């Protein structure tokens, strides 16, 4: 059952990452990978919210499998984040590479922490 929920969530999350990236990347001309940053930040916030809700026993574990492990896990990506950062280094855009690392980590972690805090405030 859990395997099926993970599959359902991932079947939607992965293509949504692709479509979001395309939509975001077509709206600017810079080398900076805004598309991947966007999905990683949104997915981190959602997973934080879910983790907080599960911790407060507000949602069942099945929702975590579907939306957390499946959807948020597939919506966000470390491989594309890593590859795009290395590409920026190889294209000598060192400032963008460093900015991508710092902004991704700070905003990803910040929104995850925020999501958990908000969930805690709502459900505890």
């Amino acid at each position, binding site marked *: 059952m859990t395997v099926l929920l993970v599959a359902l969530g991932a079947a939607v999350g*992965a293509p949504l*990452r692709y479509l979001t990236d395309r939509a975001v990347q077509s709206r600017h001309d810079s080398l900076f990978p805004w598309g991947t940053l966007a999905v990683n930040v949104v997915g*981190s916030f959602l997973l934080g919210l879910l983790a907080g809700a599960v911790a407060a026993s507000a949602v069942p574990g099945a929702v975590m499998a579907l939306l957390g*492990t499946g959807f948020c896990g597939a919506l966000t990506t*470390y491989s594309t984040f890593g590859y795009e950062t290395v590409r920026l280094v190889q294209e000598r855009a060192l400032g963008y590479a460093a900015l991508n690392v710092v902004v991704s980590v700070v905003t990803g972690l910040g929104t995850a922490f925020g999501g958990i805090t908000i969930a805690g405030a709502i459900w505890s």
Partner: protein
Amino acid sequence: MRPERAQWPVIGVISIGGVLGAEARYGLAVAWPAHPGHFPWATFVTNAVGCLLIGVLMVLVTEVWVAHRLLRPFLGVGVLGGFTTFSTYAVDVQRLVAAGAVRTGLLYLAGTLLVALVAVYAGVAAARLATRPRHRPVEAARYGGRESGS
């Protein structure tokens, strides 16, 4: 954000690849559960392996193979994108800090980042080394090297 018709096969293979990648990540997490306050090895290894493989894949599809147009979306965006995760990484760090394992949290935060980026480099370098044609040194000498020739 409505996709045009030609996009549907791409979206389909990304969806299938994403499911395969996510199931592999889930399987590893079940087999190797992270205990509260302890280093989340399953997510760490998942992200490191995914980064190594994207490095290999991108060299193969952009420099070596004349790849089918759906191969990169399937393996790169789908399988590896679905396998690796940024959201679990972020929430893992929060959980470690909340459990009072601040040092483990910082080690995991910086360790994943460092190992992931080195893994992409290693994947790219290994793939280039493994697929380098044997006759290239002769060609390079004749044309004055790859860098100045291109």
